[in-house]
């Protein structure tokens, strides 16, 4: 167990919410010996998750108070998915196959999106930049210079959440449509 490579740096990054993906140097070690790392962290009360799209993160706990960052990241991410859907291209292709110019993002240029962002206290490009920095810190995006960024594989967590929401709504709809026997 002591021979687990990059253990300190992996632990240090994951515990701060980072998602380790193929762009990170520790990824291959984690990928090869996932079970060993998972066992090691389990003894510390931490659950190491391996996402089906092949990246790693610590299972989040459910804090009583939600940090302000989470709703902001969620709204920002849902907007990009909604925008992608309106472009008519498969979402994953749209999100992962291009570099985004920060000033060309639809978030503040469309009134509906801007209003949604105001709900989470994101008002201007400065706030968007802060948000992108936070997303970079958790390994969801990588900035390219000052003006551009691209989404990294761990952004699949947002897409998984979208699928979960749809599935849950459909299940609720089926339950509502099922007649109750009296």
């Amino acid at each position, binding site marked *: 167990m002591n021979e687990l490579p990059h253990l300190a740096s992996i632990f240090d990054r994951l515990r*701060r919410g980072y998602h380790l993906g193929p762009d990170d140097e520790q990824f291959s070690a984690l990928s090869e010996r996932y079970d060993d790392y998972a066992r090691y962290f389990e003894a510390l009360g931490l659950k190491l998750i391996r996402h089906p799209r092949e990246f790693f993160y610590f299972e*989040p706990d459910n804090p009583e108070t939600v940090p302000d960052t989470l709703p902001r990241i969620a709204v920002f991410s*849902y907007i990009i998915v909604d925008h992608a*859907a309106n472009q008519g291209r498969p*979402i994953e292709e749209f999100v992962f196959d291009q570099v985004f110019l920060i000033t060309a993002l639809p978030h503040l240029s469309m009134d509906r999106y801007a209003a949604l962002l105001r709900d*989470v206290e994101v008002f201007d490009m400065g706030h968007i930049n802060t948000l992108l920095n936070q997303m970079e810190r958790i390994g969801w995006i990588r900035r390219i210079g000052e003006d551009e960024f691209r989404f990294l594989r761990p952004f699949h967590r947002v897409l998984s*959440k979208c699928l979960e929401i749809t*599935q849950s709504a459909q299940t609720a709809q089926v339950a509502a449509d099922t007649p109750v026997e009296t």
Partner: protein
Amino acid sequence: MKVNPQSFFNFCASHTSLLRKLAEHDGEISEFETIRLVRINPAIEELPETTWRRLRELQILVPTEPGSDLYLMAEPVSRLLAYLSNEANAATPEMIRGYVSSLETTTKRLDRSLDDQDIQEVALAFEEISQTLRRIHADLNETQHAILAEVARYKTERSRVSVRQKYQRIVHWMERYVEPMIEIVRSDGPLRPAFEEAERLLHRAREEALFNDHPALARNLRFLRLVGVHALRVFTQCRKEIQPLYESLRRSSFIAEGAARALEKLQTEGLAKWGSEYLIGIAMERYQNVPSDAAIALTLRRIVEHPPEPPPFLEFAIEKENPLALVRLRWLDSLPDTVGGILPVSDLMAWLVSTYPDRDTSEIVAAFGLLVFHRDFHATFVDEAQHTYATSDGEVKAFPLILAST
């Protein structure tokens, strides 16, 4: 009215771009709209009004109903243009079912004709079977062509049609054409028994020498087998083409729906009611008040180096005197039994102060209250003037009261 073929094709030859635009126009078209298209796609040395007149004379455009101002491109012309431009219209499953049903009817007729040895009727039925098979074959090919063209269009299309709309369209193709067609043409579908029956009767016609065009008979038998196999292959291929697109769009559509639901909820109910179900949790380990390694080491060293000493001594000796409160409580508890033996008491307060002269005023009053309200006794005031009773530390003024048992 018959149309002169030479005039028709001459007109078509000099108006190809106009015909193309008319064919692309969906549904009914007015005179105004047609003339607009004519002006955009002009023919050499011809007035738009002349072109408009010729379009109607040559029956390229026909009124939607007699006397109507709206026109449609005549169906044969549409088909001709589709054929010329290599476009295809998908046959619906109902059309294929219609062919199968027609084949079943014809084979029944052929069966009867063979029983009756009616050679003329056998020839007619044979011809009908051939035609039906040719139509099935042509329509299957055209459907495959249409589906593949649609798939190619989806793959290359970059128009701003939303993912959900695209998904709905591909679902339409999948559910309207591909799956129902496979149901018809697969080995246990309705096409197979109709074909087998037709084949059996063609064999019978040959054996009974009621149809002597043996090469045509052999051709029809071959065609029957070919169409059966071809149909299944065509739609299996179509499904293979369309399935990945269907899956990809299905996933994208579901993802888009989830994001839209989350945003809609935020829009309608605000952040306060958005709830954690829409958040994507992220591990945020916060270490507060955690001792450092040095602090842990220091504590351990202190434990290890702590000099041994005996455990603290606890005093278990019994107290010699009862607490005053306990003594008072026990006295009060004993009163009902004491007074119960001497009832009735003509003046309760007088009895208390004389019996317990050492008790202070508060104890006397507490005893008085306890006995007056005790469930086993009944207290009644005496019609006398107020008395003053002396206690160990003062005096009490009260009206005399008789205590009796209930």
